[in-house]
């Protein structure tokens, strides 16, 4: 082995400094700030702050609105991750079968990823707003009482659909790459062994796709938890009532709209703990069942 040896100790540190600086400034420092803030209480005018220990956490965790947001988040995240991944996988498998125009189809599939979340939200709003939405009228003609401004379930359906639509491209890209990495001869061997296409997919292709699926599971969970803020903000604003208020949205609402900084900070610390815990869980218990080729 040929190891590069630097002439003195300082240079290697100097070389990694930019990366470290970025991580510290944009990750550790805000996290530390949130942590500090979560232990403080500001008066109504923001003139004085006092240290209150864990009392912000206690209040947040016993707040029924917070528990509601937690429940909304769980439902929302599971729906978004599941729909975005399964639809993307279905489309990627179909794309594999295309003979002509494969590149065009793929490019079109990847497009939505370039759309900013808030704009994606606006697009869906324009399509489904009960008063001026392009598709609201046809829905009503079909006998559906379409009004996501009043009906919490419809509102949830709408934000789930918009968030899913936005994430499908990303998942599609990874599934296409994952599928291409599976040798064709394996599916041919399965075909000769007597497997139908469907059986070969579930017994050969899907298990071999597990590393990709697992990676996307982690990414999609984080996406659903954090990156969907823009969409929810544009489409429902957390309403009607609090039926689409996710944890992230509540952090924003309490902190920047209601200006209860202590509570908001405590919520973001809890959220951070949840994400770290969830990701650790996924690596610990799901990854073990993943077969890396």
């Amino acid at each position, binding site marked *: 082995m040929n190891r590069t040896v630097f002439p003195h100790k300082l240079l290697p540190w100097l070389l990694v400094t930019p990366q470290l600086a970025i991580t510290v400034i944009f990750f550790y420092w805000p996290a530390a700030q949130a942590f500090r803030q979560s232990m403080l209480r500001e008066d109504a005018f923001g003139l004085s702050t006092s240290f209150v220990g864990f009392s912000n956490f206690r209040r947040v965790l016993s707040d029924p609105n917070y528990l509601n947001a937690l429940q909304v988040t769980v439902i929302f995240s599971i729906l978004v991750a599941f729909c975005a991944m399964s639809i993307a996988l279905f489309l990627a498998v179909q794309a594999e079968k295309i003979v002509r125009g494969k590149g065009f189809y793929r490019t079109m599939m990847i497009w939505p990823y370039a759309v900013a979340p808030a704009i994606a939200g606006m697009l869906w709003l324009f399509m489904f707003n009960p008063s001026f939405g392009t598709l609201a009228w046809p829905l009503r003609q079909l006998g559906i009482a379409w009004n996501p401004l009043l009906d919490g379930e419809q509102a949830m359906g709408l934000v789930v659909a918009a968030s899913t639509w936005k994430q499908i491209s990303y998942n599609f890209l990874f599934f296409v790459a994952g599928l291409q990495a599976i*040798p064709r*001869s*394996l599916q041919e*061997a*399965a*075909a*000769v*062994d007597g497997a*139908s296409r469907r059986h070969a997919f579930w017994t050969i292709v899907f298990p071999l796709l597990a590393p990709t699926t697992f990676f996307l599971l982690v990414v999609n969970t984080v996406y659903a938890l954090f990156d969907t803020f823009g969409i929810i903000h544009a489409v429902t604003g957390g309403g009607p009532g609090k039926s689409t208020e996710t944890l992230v949205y509540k952090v924003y609402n309490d902190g920047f709209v209601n200006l209860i900084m202590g509570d908001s900070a405590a919520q973001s610390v809890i959220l951070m703990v949840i994400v770290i815990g969830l990701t650790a869980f996924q690596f610990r218990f799901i990854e073990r069942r993943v077969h890396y080729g």
Partner: protein
Amino acid sequence: MAHILLKELRKSYAGQEVIHGVSMDIADGEFVVIVGPSGCGKSTLLRMVAGLEGITAGTIEIGGRVVNDLEPRDRDIAMVFQNYALYPHMSVRENMAYGLKISKMPKPEIEQRVARAATMLELEPYLDRKPRALSGGQRQRVAMGRALVREPSALLLDEPLSNLDAKLRVQMRLQIKDMHLRTGQTTLYVTHDQVEAMTLADRLIVMNKGIAEQIATPSEVYRTPASEFVAGFIGSPAMNIFTIRAEAGTAILPGGHRLAIAGIPASGEVRLGLRPEDLEVTDADTASIPIDLRSVEHLGADAFGYGVIVGSDILLTLRLPGTSTAQRGDRLNVAPFPGRLHLFSIETGKRI
């Protein structure tokens, strides 16, 4: 067990024909080897029989049933792939049982068959391992086992030994031959290696650029090659082939030497083929070809001499006894054994 019939099989990719009408009748239990240089369409032909490639024209019958439009799974065949195509996430046992499970065979029988194949292929210690924990030779045997447990009508193998080292290749070749004698399964075997082809085959299909140049037993192919291509492809070292001119029944060789050859046309040019072992060193006065030896390779039992025909630049290979003392710079006179020479048409390459 089944008999396989190929009738005027053709295959085109995007208008480009790569298989130009191959016909063959393969008897039940026969071991047929498809041999030819890389890119001549061997795999394509095999994959058409397997149902992995569509058929552009012609028919394929397996066991008396036209299978042109049947899916691979409905053809009752098994295949061994060049890269083995083992399912990487399944153990050796699961790999072998995969097809049996699909056919809804009762569990005890699956276990029995897998155990039998494992014994035959000496795979028992590895049944619970994943393919990645196996050596190349073991993987190859698993691929064989996976094909054999299904007891298909026909067994198809696409260059199954080409990823093994030389020694293992010889071992596996013998094992495959042995297995065929035991199971009596109709077998189609693709290889570019003429030694494998000659030793394994009941009959050979020698392919060249999508055409079956000759379909015959190994010894027929060797003794009476149907074309110049077959003559040059089969045999090691390769046959000496060069152009001669015929004049009133005698042959004028390169360098102007005259040689009486039975059966040559009255006039015109033809290609003459002489195997290295069909040349005999003789006295100068009999009808013979003088050559200048350029080098001699001693292999122990045999030696091979390489020389040019005097007065030309045509290189001849000849087999010499291992005890030969001939060396570089010697001038030898060689004569072909009567009846062991091959003539081919210049225009068509076919045997005359």
